[in-house]
Structures are given as structure tokens and as C-alpha cells.
């Protein structure tokens, strides 16, 4: 097998298409959010208008996504790790890059831990966490050794399975859906809706991957479209989730549950079909989604280190596995896991909400200076 060409050089064969970019963004966004978003948002909003909050959160994510695309488009064929040093100088650039690598590492650890929590809770009670996390990480390592192209391709396989099974499961739960649970719309005005925006916007973390994979795109000028569609798809899935969960369990019912979406699926049975319960299907889909999110984190962090140190990427891929594992083991219990998630979210807000805008402005000013100097 000749799978060992150095990947830090972006050669012409290692390119991804626009649909592939879209699907990478979508898969990266979909993750823990499907299971926890209804509760997290309900805690903040406290009215049935959560779905409006989700839409607003999505729109914010789109704006941030477009800013990041604009920034990356200034530096064709180069990733954030490479061009950030050009904008703000060597040391600041390196600092930002390390922050970003740290972010991907923490997020990956968070994903691995959530997977272990849910799997241990629903499928493998009593199985040690390392036994769940380790084979998962090996699968990720095996995949990303092939570079960005196999990653994009496997996402393309997982994506339709996710959508089909998710929609199937979601519409099965229509049986216990109560429209009254969603009323009144804007009963307490717009304020509660705005309160939850930060939470829902954080469910859309994922477009930041555009800072890196834009460099791999065959048609980087279509990146804007890719990121918009890439956010719209999870937006739909989130809205459907929130509407279904709130509609079935009501706001009060949602707040008290750890994994409200799973509880929804577990709370009804359909007789007459082969399966009466569909949580196994949802779990299968969800494990695959966690896999996609984790592999992206793993790849993004390895790519960052290999580009910063200008070394072959493969040793970093192996070397990061124990780090991911250690990070995933830091939280002591499920509440700590969610705290870690919140922390990562806050970092993401600064790192990808404000920083790209700042960098974009600096690079524009610098660019103009450069032009006038000519």
C-alpha cells in the first residue's frame, strides 16, 4: 500500500470537491448537539420558542462561516496555520495556531468522552471507558492516515445514512407529538429567544474547519456556498430535533433529562414493524456522527502540528492519540463533561467568532498598504 506520501504538501491529487466540503462541514457540526441541544437551549430559553433560537443561532454561525471563508480565500492553497503568521507576525501567528490545535484537541477529547458516556449508558453498561474510546480512536487513525480525500469520502457515505435514518426516526415520533407543547409562539416576547442564542450558536461550531480545508478545495471560490449549505443542513436537522423533542416532551420535561432526544425515541413503541423501538438506529447514526467529528478534530490537530513544525504528518497522528485520550478522561462525571463542552464552546466563540473578523480586517488593511506600496 502506498499510502504514505507526505500530506503537508497539498498536491493536486489530494483535493476535495465542493459537495465534499459541504458534507465535511455538516458532519463536523452534527455531533453531541443532536442529543443535548434541546435540553441546553430549553434551560436558557424556558419557553417553547427554542426552534426560533436555533434558527437565529444558525444564522450567526453562517455569518461567522462566511467571514472565515473570506479570510481563507485571501490566501489560496494555504491553511490558517500557514497564513496566520503572515497576518499578525510569526509569534502571534504561532500562538493562534497553537490555540487552535488546543481547541481541536479539547473538542476531540470532548467528543470521545460524550461517545463513551452515551454508549456506556445505553449500549454497554459496565464496559470500561477505555475499551470504548480506544478502538474508536484506532478507527480514526486508520482513516486519517489516508489524508483528506478518504476522510471526505467516508463522510459522503455516512451522511446519507444519517439523514435517512434520522428522518425515519424523527417522523416515527410524530405519534406522541403534541402541537400544544409548542404554543404559544413568542408568548413571552422576543427576550427569552435572544437569551439562548449563545447556546444554540455553539451547537453550530464546525464551520471553523473551513479555515483549513479551503486550502484543499478544487474550487475555492465556491467555498462560501459550501459553508452556507453545510450549515443549512444541520440547521434543518436541529430544528426538526428541537420541534419533535419539545413537541413530545414539553419544555419542562426536556430540562430534567440528560439526553432528551434519546429519551424521546425510547418513549414510544410502534407495533407491527420489525423494530418497535428505534433508539438503536439513532445510536448507530449518532456513533457514526461522533466518528466523523472526532476524525476531523484528529486530522485538523495533526495537520496543524505537522505544518507548524514542518514535519511528516503521520507521527503526529499517532502521537496525538494518547493526548486525546487523556483529555477525554479529565472530566470526572457527566456534568463535568458538559462543563468541558461549554468551555470549548466559549473558546470557540472567541477563537472563531471574533478572531477571524479581526484577522480579515488586518489582512485587508495590510493588503491595501501592499497595493499602495506598489
Amino acid at each position, binding site marked *: 500500500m502506498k499510502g504514505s506520501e507526505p500530506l503537508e504538501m497539498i498536491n493536486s491529487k489530494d483535493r476535495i470537491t465542493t459537495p465534499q466540503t459541504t458534507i465535511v462541514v455538516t458532519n463536523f457540526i452534527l455531533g453531541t448537539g443532536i442529543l443535548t441541544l434541546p435540553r441546553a437551549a430549553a434551560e436558557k430559553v424556558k419557553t417553547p420558542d427554542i426552534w426560533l433560537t436555533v434558527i437565529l443561532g444558525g444564522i450567526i454561525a453562517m455569518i461567522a462561516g462566511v467571514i472565515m471563508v473570506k479570510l481563507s480565500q485571501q490566501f489560496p492553497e494555504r491553511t490558517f496555520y500557514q497564513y496566520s503568521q503572515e497576518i499578525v507576525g510569526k509569534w502571534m501567528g504561532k500562538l493562534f495556531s497553537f490555540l487552535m490545535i488546543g481547541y481541536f484537541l479539547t473538542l476531540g477529547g470532548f467528543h470521545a468522552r460524550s461517545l463513551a458516556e452515551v454508549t456506556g449508558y445505553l449500549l454497554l453498561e459496565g464496559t470500561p471507558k477505555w475499551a470504548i474510546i480506544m478502538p474508536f480512536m484506532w478507527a480514526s487513525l486508520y482513516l486519517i492516515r489516508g489524508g483528506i480525500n478518504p476522510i471526505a*469520502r467516508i463522510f459522503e457515505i*455516512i451522511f446519507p445514512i444519517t439523514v435517512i435514518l434520522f428522518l425515519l426516526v424523527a417522523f416515527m415520533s410524530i405519534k406522541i407529538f403534541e402541537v400544544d407543547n409548542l404554543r404559544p409562539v413568542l408568548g413571552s416576547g422576543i427576550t427569552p429567544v435572544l437569551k439562548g442564542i449563545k447556546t444554540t450558536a455553539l451547537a453550530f461550531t464546525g464551520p471553523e474547519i473551513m479555515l483549513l480545508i479551503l486550502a484543499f478545495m478544487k474550487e475555492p471560490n465556491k467555498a462560501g456556498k459550501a459553508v452556507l449549505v453545510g450549515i443549512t443542513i444541520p440547521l434543518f436537522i436541529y430544528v426538526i430535533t428541537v420541534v419533535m423533542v419539545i413537541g413530545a416532551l414539553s419544555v419542562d420535561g426536556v430540562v430534567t433529562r440528560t439526553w432528551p432526544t434519546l429519551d424521546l425515541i425510547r418513549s414510544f413503541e410502534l407495533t407491527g414493524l*420489525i*423494530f418497535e423501538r428505534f433508539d438503536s438506529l439513532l445510536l448507530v447514526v449518532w456513533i457514526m456522527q461522533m466518528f466523523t467529528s472526532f476524525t476531523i478534530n484528529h486530522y485538523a490537530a495533526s495537520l496543524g502540528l505537522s505544518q507548524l513544525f514542518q514535519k511528516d504528518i503521520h507521527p503526529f497522528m499517532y502521537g496525538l492519540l494518547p493526548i486525546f485520550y487523556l483529555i477525554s478522561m479529565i472530566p470526572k462525571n457527566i456534568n463535568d463533561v458538559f462543563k468541558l463542552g461549554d468551555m470549548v464552546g466559549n473558546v470557540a466563540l472567541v477563537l472563531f467568532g471574533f478572531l477571524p473578523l479581526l484577522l480579515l480586517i488586518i489582512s485587508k488593511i495590510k493588503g491595501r498598504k501592499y497595493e499602495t506600496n506598489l
Partner: protein
Amino acid sequence: MKMKKWKSKIRKIGKPTDENENKQESASQASTNQFTDDFTLNLEVVRKELGHNWDVHFRDFIIGRTGIEACIVFVEGLSDKDLIDKHIMTSLMADFSAEYQQEEPYVKESLSNQFIKNQVLSISDVEEVHSIKELASKVLTGSTALLIDGLSHAFILGTTKLKTRTIEEPVSEALVRGPRVGFTESLSDNTSLLRGSGDIENLSLVKFQVGKRSKKDLVVAYINEIVDPELVKEVEKRIKKIDLDNVPESGYVEQLIEDNYLSPFPQVQNTERPDRVIAALMEGRVAILLDGTPFALIAPVTFSMMLQSPEDYYERWIPGTFIRFLRYIAVVLSLFTPAVYIAFISFHPGLIPTKLAISIIGTRSGVPFPALIEALFMEVAIEILREAGLRLPKPIGPAMGIVGGLIIGEAAVQAGIVSPILVIVVALTAISSFAIPQYSVGITLRILRFVAMLCAAILGLYGVVLFFLFMMSHLVKLKSFGVPYMSPAVPYRLSEWKDLMVRMPLMMMKRRPKMMHTKDPLRKG
């Protein structure tokens, strides 16, 4: 004339000791060297080279009333004796032209080379060789050598007659509808089947030789106007790298030219059907035919090709599509059913419908083994039965499968070793794996099924999902001659999904697969 004969006797008998010694010396030298003017010496050398073989025959004779000696050498069984008798012996002995009857023996070029070739030998394939080695290799492949006194070279006459079987329906790829023609062991028959199936413009059949000791012909077939020249170069490069004593079957070639020898998935397709080869060539692929085997190779392949049968195209598109869907379902069933059974029974009985769970657990109550052992027992039994059924004589084989399967299944349930549900599961997987048109892919799925079962036994449903992710990771990384194995499914090429899981009407499939980088992208015009 008498004078000449006497002379010849002197040459033969006179000074026997010296002559023999000289001859032996020169013979050993000449065996690698060229033929000389000396007929007896030449013959001596040839006898030394080939005479020890039981099946090599030497026939000395005098050319029609001239007194010139000649000899033919041929291999019994490989050469066509009819042809030798009627067109070589008769024309040289009985019908020999009267003009040349007064020719004198032992004189150099007494019989004109051109005359023999152009007026005497009524045979289509005549060439001249000058060295013993050349002569030996030709004679041993069925040609007849003719040595004539006075000529410093030998004629090689194409009298090869290989014993071939008649063209039959391929056993490994039976179809309900479609040509009942399969390749045979003869390379020339096989290439003629390709040429004969319609007047294909630009069909190139390029010959190579493989095997260092047993040299075999290998033909690379492609359509010049369609195929990507880079692909042909790559295939030829890999074939030239084959370095073996003997290449008995195209399976050897397949294993030596494939991309990843660690992969359980076949990266070259083998087929016995000329129509399948032609269809592949038309898509811009390359076929490899080897002498001595009815199995041709097609490269590059994709995973979807392994689940397609030529019949999909011969039937109308609706049944074709339906049958393709069935095959994809069969793949999923044959890979995952026992694994899912194990996962649900031993890890998550709560995830299956309550009534079903109760009935399964009820039937399993007497089973003393964990689900993995139970399932492994039945799966291994059925694999052994299948293998045994293959080896048995044809009339007994299927009976053995049915009887063995029924009896073992029934008895195992009665004895309380396995549950009846498991017998259904195992039967379902076995039948599903038969529904896959390519035998080699069927084997792959059978192997992977056991891996999936182990994963399920260790980590339950989570293990099955991980197994799926590992397998998919492998598949998306795999390539066959530069073509991604999972294309055109991923990366998405919507226009080519018309021929992936569905088989759209023929008039909608106007383009050749893009991944083949064909010179002529359109199927029409």
C-alpha cells in the same frame, strides 16, 4: 548418383574415431551456435538437444528421387500428423518436382531455399531458423522442423495443434439470459471470441510473455480509441514486473498486479464471459487474458462492479434495477445478520421488540453457550458444508449441501445446542452470500462476516458500528489501478449513479464512466 552415395558413405563411415570425436566437440560448441553446412552434424546436434525426449520424433527420408537426405523433427501429440503427412511428407517425397531430380546432394544450396519454401511446402506458416536453441523451442511448442542436406538452416513449419475443448457455457457465471459462451483454455480461441463478437474497431490485443521457465503468452486487450493511455501503460508496467518461473493461472497475475495485497477485497475482476469483457472494454477498462485458463482479468474495478451481472443490462431496466437492489440488501444481510444477532442477544436484548425478545430468549433457554459460540458453531458448519459440496462429484454436491444443512440444523436445534432463530439467521446469510454474482467477493464477505461477529461479541452493537467504520475507511482508501474503489458512489457523481444501485434505461446512459478518463466520453456517435 552411385558415386555420390558412396561418397556419403565414406563421409559417414570413414575415419570413424576421429570424426566422432570431432563431432562431439563441435556438437557441444554448436549447440548454442548456428547451424553449419554439414547436414549430419546438424542432425547430430539436434538429436543431442532433443533426442532424449520420448515424445520427440525424428523421421529421416530422401527427397523425391534426388537422393538428398532430409529429416523432420516433431513432437508426438502437439503436432498435427495429418498436416505433416499430407503437406510435408507427400510434397517432399511423392510429388517432388521432376526438374530438381538431378540435384546433387552435399553441395551447398543444391536445393534452392526459395524453391522449397515457395513451390514445395504447401503450408501457410514457414520460417527459417539458424540456431539450435530456436529450433528446440519451436519444436517443443508443436512446430515441425525440417532439415535438408545442403541448407545451412532449418525450416520451421507451423503444425501446432493444441487439444482444446469446445466452447461451453461458463460454470462460475451462469445467466438466465445472455450468450451461452465462455472462454476456454486456449488463448487463440479466447482472443477469437473477443474479435468475433462484433466488428470492434481498434480492438488492440498486445502480446506479452510471462514466466521465466515455462513461458506463457499473455494478451492485454483494450480499445484504442476509448482507453486512457496512462492506464494501459500502468497495466503493462505491472505485467512486465512479473518475475516467476511459472504462471499457471490468471490468479497469479491478479495477485502480482493488484494494488494492495493486504486488502480482503479483490481489486481485479475475473470472468469467464466474453460479453462481460467486451462490456468492460467499452467502458475504457483493460482486460488481461492468459494462455491456459478460461479466466480473463478486468482492471480497474470498483466495488459496485462486483455486484453487477451482465444480465442486469440484458433484462429490461425495471427488473434489472430490482435485482440490483436485492443484491445490495444481500450484501448487508450476509455481512451483518449474525453479528447483529450476537450483539442483540448478548448485549442489548432490551433493544429488540419485547415479544420477539421473549420468544428468542425462550427458545434459547436450553442453549448452554453464549451467542458467539452458538453462531460460530453454525456458521463454521455451514462453511464446511459449502466447501465440501464444492469438492464432491457434481451429482452429489448439492444433495450433500441440502441434506447436511437440514440435518445438522434440525439436529442441533433438537439437541439444544443452537436456537431455531439462529438457524434462520445462518440460512439467511448463506443464501444471501450466494446471491452475489462474483465468487471472489462472496468469499470476501464470508471472511468479513466472521470479523463482524467477533466485533459484535466484544463490543455489541457499538462493535458492529466500529467494524462498519473500519471497513468503510479501508474501502474509501483502496484503489484499483488509480481508480478509487468506491467510485462512483463517492465522491458523489450523480450522473453516474444511473448505473450504480439502479440500472436506468439504456438510452439514459450515454456517457462512459468518468473515472476511467476515457478518450471518447460518449457511448454513442
